[in-house]
């Protein structure tokens, strides 16, 4: 099949809302969104605590978390694989090669981004707000809601960056999901598989959806920063 025909067929897959095609897109979005929500639930408070806490070894922890932002997806996949494999510490849970395993792997990838950006954003805000909040009796944990709210636009950008990273990665979900048809096959793993098989229309169709998603994420991040500048100053 030539490239032009492949493109035509790819657009046809998208426009006729092919059920198999939609199932892959749906699973990808479900896995990634769940991972981002989990990373936010863990990462926002953890980043806030790290922004305000002072303890021996804090700098080393901050550097480690910053470095983990560049954690290769295959390494994240390997860690989760080792944890969930039959002989691993969590092997009895039977989660390997399930969507849950994929969520865990993607959470591991997104978490350092959320923690690191939250820490950086809130540390800057705390330096600016400390005197005022202390004056109002809002110290320690009581200051965190104010800092999270006032950093909301920057934090939203961070979460979108995390979503972008998770939705585009292939290595981790391939290793712990197993790329099982109709069960753990996501957009990225399907693109890799179908391209190797020579089924270009499906790969191209999913590629177009993925690119559109990336574009939408960037537009949302840009909008968040513009809205932040307009309403928060």
């Amino acid at each position, binding site marked *: 099949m030539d490239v032009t025909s492949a493109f035509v067929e790819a657009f046809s897959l998208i426009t006729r809302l092919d059920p198999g095609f939609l199932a892959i897109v749906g699973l990808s979005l479900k896995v990634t969104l769940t991972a981002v929500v989990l990373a936010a639930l863990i990462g926002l408070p953890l980043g806030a605590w790290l922004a305000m806490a002072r303890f021996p070894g804090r700098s080393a922890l901050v550097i480690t978390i910053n470095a983990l932002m560049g954690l290769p997806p295959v390494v994240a996949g390997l860690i989760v694989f080792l944890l969930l494999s039959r002989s691993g510490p969590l092997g009895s849970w039977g989660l390997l090669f399930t969507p849950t395993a994929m969520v865990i792997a993607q959470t591991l990838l997104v978490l350092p981004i959320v923690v690191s950006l939250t820490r950086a954003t809130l540390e800057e805000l705390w330096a600016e707000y400390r005197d005022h909040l202390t004056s*109002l009796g809002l110290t320690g944990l009581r200051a965190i809601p*104010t800092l999270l709210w*006032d950093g909301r636009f920057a934090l939203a950008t961070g979460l979108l960056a995390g979503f972008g990273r998770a939705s585009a990665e292939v290595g981790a979900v391939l290793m712990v999901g197993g790329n099982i048809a109709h069960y753990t096959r996501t957009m990225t793993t399907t693109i890799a598989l179908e391209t190797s098989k020579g089924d270009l229309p499906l790969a191209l169709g999913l590629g177009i959806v993925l690119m559109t998603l990336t574009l939408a994420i960037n537009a949302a991040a840009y909008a968040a920063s513009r809205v932040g500048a*307009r309403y*928060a100053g």
Partner: protein
Amino acid sequence: MRASILPLRAERLALIRDGQRLIDTVSFTLPQGGITTIIGPNGAGKSLTLRLCHGLIAPDEGMVTWARDAHLRHAMVFQQPVMLRRSVRANIAHALHALTHPAVKSRTDEALARFHLTPLAERPARLLSGGEKQKLAIARAWATEPEVLFLDEPTSQLDPAATREIEALIRTLSLEGLTLVMTTHDLGQARRLADRILFFNRGRLVEDADAASFFEQPETPQARAFIAGELL
């Protein structure tokens, strides 16, 4: 009416950093009412004294005591007003976190009207002019119904027109019964506003006098030199 938290007693306060006594054995009493102005050359310890009294920093020696529990009953306005990334209204409402929701709304409206900020209520606070920001900072502090208001160089970043407006506001608040303690490096402002002067130099309280006698008959050579503009 609640019993007063005043007088405030600062007893033998000292703040030591890197072996240096930034505040050196300072004692004074702050009774109810009036405008007490802390003046002195750069590095005299004016702002540090204010921060010690407000409880933002703890002294290494000595203590600050109030007549009774003063938690959230004294407020502070900073040299560079801290503006939350919210509207003018939300900045005031945030300071009232200890109140119930309906009380927050009515008190916020009251503060906006009292300081002529109602037309700016929905504007992002960080986009206000310097004078408007300082006015909002004072309104926000006033809304918490403090008995004592500490002001750290409240006009040092402002143009003459905004300075006049803030000075008028300070005078009005004093006439309404609020006890004010402010620092300034502007002798003219101290002459215009102060009822009492605390003159600091190198971390020590050198003179504690009513404003008229301080400016007419300073007791120490340091105070004379400062008034003459020879001690900066």
